[in-house]
């Protein structure tokens, strides 16, 4: 048996081994190029229009004076109330599914419905919110309805991350508690929840950043209204930041376009801040172990 058998045969295939990873990485390259050009475009067209007035002024037909104050308030109100609704429900759901529920069938039924909710397009939440909450229940096209809609939109996210947080708590700890004669709730309250809370917090921050960026359901609920005042009650009409941007984007004047860019920079900065908080939280979590 000669040396030539072991020498590099199939030169073509060896070349494949070198080039294939390069070809596959083209996908990454395109994606990164796209993100880069998007961010660059936004910055170039909007950075010079950034100002405090953007945050503190009301919208106006004069682009030089327009700001997004009501939208900021609207975002804070809706996302705030929505978190107040989705966080307890999501955590409680996760507690039930992981700590209490015994019957396999019931648990998978509930799980299926959670998954179904996750699969509904966000705009449908808006449509149903309008029909059921705004009209049937008579709550009007208000902040309250917007909040409820956002809450259920983000509920699957909060529930799933709370579930993960609970599952991450080792069973040994629970067994130790049972062995001491504690009831299930006592174990959850004193052992499981404290450990799971940081991870749950991370999940809720993610849900919050998702809710901040959602325009479609709010568009359906509130319509494209010209809000001139700061909302004072949950039953007021409202707008949110991404919708205000949609408004400016739809205007033909170039100045509004630049304003939109500036607003987008603000929105993205807010989201980056939130995500940085998540990463920091995760880092602190892993250090604790």
């Amino acid at each position, binding site marked *: *048996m000669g040396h030539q*058998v*072991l*020498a*590099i*045969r*199939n030169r073509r*295939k*060896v070349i494949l081994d070198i080039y294939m990873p390069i070809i596959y990485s083209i996908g990454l390259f395109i994606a990164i190029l796209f993100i880069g050009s998007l961010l660059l475009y936004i910055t170039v067209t909007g950075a010079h229009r950034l100002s405090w007035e953007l945050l503190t002024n009301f919208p106006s037909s004069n682009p030089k004076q327009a700001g997004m104050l009501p939208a900021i308030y609207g975002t804070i109100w809706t996302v705030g109330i929505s978190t107040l609704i989705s966080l307890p429900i999501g955590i409680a759901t996760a507690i039930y599914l992981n700590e209490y529920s015994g019957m396999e069938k019931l648990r998978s039924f509930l799980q299926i419905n959670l998954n179904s909710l996750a699969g509904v397009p966000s705009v449908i939440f808006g449509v149903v919110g309008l029909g059921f909450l705004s009209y049937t229940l008579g709550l009007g096209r208000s902040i309250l309805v917007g909040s409820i809609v956002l809450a259920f939109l983000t509920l699957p996210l909060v529930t799933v991350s709370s579930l993960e947080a609970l599952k991450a708590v080792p069973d040994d700890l629970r067994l130790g508690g049972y062995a001491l004669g504690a009831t299930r709730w006592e174990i959850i309250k004193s052992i499981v929840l404290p450990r799971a809370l940081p991870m749950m917090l991370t999940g809720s921050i993610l849900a919050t950043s998702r809710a901040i960026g959602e325009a479609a359901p709010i568009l359906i609920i509130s319509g494209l209204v010209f809000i001139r005042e700061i909302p004072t009650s949950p039953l007021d009409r409202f707008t949110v930041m991404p919708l205000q941007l949609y408004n400016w984007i739809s205007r033909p004047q170039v100045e509004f376009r630049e304003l939109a860019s500036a607003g987008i920079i603000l929105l993205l900065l807010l989201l980056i801040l939130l995500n940085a908080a998540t990463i920091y939280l995760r880092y602190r979590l892993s250090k604790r172990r």
Partner: protein
Amino acid sequence: MGYGVLEQEFKVEEKVRGIRDEVHIKVKNLSVYYRKRLAISDINIEFLKNKITAIIGPSGCGKSTLLRSINRMNDLIPDATVIGKVYLDGIDIYDKSVDPVAVRAVIGMVFQRPNPFPMSIYDNVAFGVRINRLAKDREELDKKVEDALRKAALWDEVKDRLDTHAYELSGGQQQRLCIARALAINPKVLLLDEPTVSLDPVSTAKIEELLYKLKSELTIIIVTHNMLQAARVSDFTAVMMPNEKLVGTLIEYGPTKEVFTNPKDKRTEAYISGRVG
């Protein structure tokens, strides 16, 4: 092809091996590190052509590591470093000019747990033939598949259902399928890493029997931690043990009969009689 005198202690002495027995694979000063930890150290051994050599020893002493070094499967483990030389018919397979992929087409391997591809029986056996371009048409491919399945003692059981999915076979059949898959590309050496450890006694016996028949065409190296299997099946036996630093070393090597009835090393004796490992 003479090799001269080896520096190390273990060589198969001429008077023990027959005049016709050639050395097929020679392992020289082989050490393998996983990350920075030494797994096996300074292995020197010669495997003879057309013989079955068993490598035995307690769990974790590096038998599989040694086996994987022979067909350069350790290359695929990112943190493994191989030092030393492995000669196949006088050629160092770790030389820079040698393509590891080509080595594996000449030295085949069968693993501990049967791992057929999620394909039909036919496609499993044909896989290696296809990628190595060893058949020029469907007819030749069919013939190679049949030959391989016959040698693996599986043909009669599957000949009318070559298209069924490999996962429908029993554990013992799957392992013979894996043997057929390895044989289909006509390797010169077959490495088996504890091939019957997950099989029932009947399948085990079938595989031991077919290995015995394959000997005439192939050199076989089998890692096993079943000493009875080694005694039944092999012509030569190598014994590996972890030393004080828990690094695997070769402590004994010779014709199977001698290793089992008259071991030279005290540790071998202890292992064989069940006192150790």
